């Protein structure tokens, strides 16, 4: 190693300092929001003059917030299921398939990842306007699937590429039909990739705001959209509470994923 941490001497402390600074920069806004959600000030004063659970009570008491919460959850779950299923089939084609244009197809499936989201949003909005999908649950799910698909294809493809096809062949020669072999042997063998795909696709839909703003109607709003529109009307600490809940679910999912990965190793 050219840069050996143990031999850096005084430079070690510089490195530690920079690391702490960057970490703080990343974490502080989250800490700030969570602190404000428990703060007693109406005007989001920091540091909070006192502590209260009032904003959470207001959040759970407000049917509009609860509707947004359940809409978000429903869309995210549907996106998770359909994206993972579609990504699984796609990965089989991209990893196992031998056809012309396979690499081009792979690149095409990954473009939503690098395309500016607002471009995807405008394109989908224009298209959905024609076929009447804007403001519908189906529209939301399909639009989020476009964004989530690359993030589901990458872990599943990686897991499938790392799985030796001889193992599937072994199951077939043992008497399992090809479908049975895939279901009983291949799928459990790539389950970590599948799980990662599920977590990613859920989270992408869960905290997506740009496409959601285009898709939303007054009666169908996701949490991030509701946060966004409330912010523009008034600066209530309920927004901080809603944001904190959003972050909490994300954190729980990430921890769960990390735990399962640790167990797998």
């Amino acid at each position, binding site marked *: 190693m050219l840069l050996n941490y143990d031999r850096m001497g005084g430079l070690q402390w510089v490195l530690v300092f920079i690391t702490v600074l960057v970490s703080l920069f990343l974490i502080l806004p989250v800490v700030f929001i969570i602190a404000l959600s428990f703060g007693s000030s109406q005007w989001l004063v920091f540091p909070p003059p006192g502590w209260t659970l009032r904003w959470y009570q207001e959040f759970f008491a407000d049917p509009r917030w609860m509707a947004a919460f359940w809409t978000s959850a429903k869309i995210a779950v549907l996106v998770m299921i359909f994206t993972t299923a579609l990504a699984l089939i796609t990965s089989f084609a991209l990893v196992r398939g031998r056809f012309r244009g396979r690499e081009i197809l792979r690149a095409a499936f990954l473009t939503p990842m690098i395309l500016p989201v607002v471009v995807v949003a405008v394109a989908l909005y224009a298209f959905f306007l024609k076929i009447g999908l804007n403001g519908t649950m189906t529209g939301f799910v399909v639009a989020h699937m476009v964004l989530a698909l690359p993030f589901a294809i990458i872990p599943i493809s990686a897991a499938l590429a790392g799985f*030796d096809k*001889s*193992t599937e*062949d*072994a*199951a*077939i*020669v*043992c*008497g*399992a*039909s*090809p479908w*049975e*072999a895939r279901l*009983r*042997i291949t799928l*459990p*063998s790539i*389950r970590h990739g599948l799980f990662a795909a599920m977590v990613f696709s859920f989270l992408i839909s869960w905290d997506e705001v740009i496409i959601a703003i285009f898709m939303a109607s007054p009666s169908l709003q996701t949490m991030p959209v509701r946060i966004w529109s409330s912010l523009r009307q008034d600066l209530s600490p309920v927004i901080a509470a809603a944001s904190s809940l959003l972050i909490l679910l994300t954190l729980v999912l990430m921890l769960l994923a990390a735990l399962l990965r640790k167990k797998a190793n």
Partner: protein
Amino acid sequence: MSDPFLSIRNLGKSFGSVRAIEDVTLEVPRGEFLTFLGPSGSGKSTTLYAIAGFLSPSQGDVHIDGRSILDLPSHKRNIGMVFQRYTLFMHLSVGENIAFPLRVRRRPAKEIDAKVDEMLALVRLEGYGDRMPAALSGGQQQRVALARALAYDPQILLMDEPLSALDKKLRDEIQFEIKRVHEQTGVTILYVTHDQEEAMRLSDRIALFNNGRIEQVGTGQQLYNEPLTRFSAAFMGNSNFIKTEVMARQGNFAAARFPDGTVVKGVPVHEQAGGGAESVLMVRPENILIETRNEGSGLPATVTNATFLGDCQLITARTSWGEDITVRSVLAPGEMGTAARGEAVRLIWPNAGSYLFL
């Protein structure tokens, strides 16, 4: 004559314009351990995969018990297979791995449990049923794979270089296990390897593959002592091929005249030796005797290199026309060597141990 148990007839397979195997014909009686031996790319694995059903041959047929199996998909052929790489199902325990073929056959649970125990005992892994494959060594994994492949009493067992991923010591140990399992179960085995020692040790017969064809089929002794082709002679053990002229041919015997004028009479002749433009005399290094008295019969040569190897001495002798001949000279107890570098010697060998390839 009754039908042989397994019959491979004129099997051929092309990938595009590349012929992987061509005209492979072979008959295997029930219970035989037959090895496909050959260099990599010689078609031995392709033949095995065609029998397993992982690829469909372009020509020919494969019969088991008088019926063609080519119309059957892989999973209905009732064939057992052990692969080169580890193919245990990593998310299932050792016991569940062995039970898998029985579960997909919807056998009753009681029968499955009994069979799993029987198979674990067969590969001497009693008590390992609850372990996960990741906790086993490579050798143990291949033994479980063997148990899984035999759990459903397959008609034949295919083994595709099952030991190539293991180190030498483990290989010897598992070779012994495989041999024992074969004797204990009497299953017909087709075994692929590129290691001739492994082939010799395990098999009843060996089919020697070269360039997609079977070069020669026979016991290890037959292949080693009576090679029919140059390739057989070169692949099985080490051989010297000495440039020679054939004269005074009588039936299956002829006299050989070397470039320096030395004549050896009564050498067995192989005509369909395949390849090579000129005639050669083949003789194994261990069949040559070194005669240090520089008179009498034998081929004159000069020792250019002599290496002491403990039980024998490896000698390179150069003929007067510049061809190097390898001699493996077994030493008597305490003997240091039979020849020294630079010494003029004569090389003598019995006719029975040599062949003329035309």
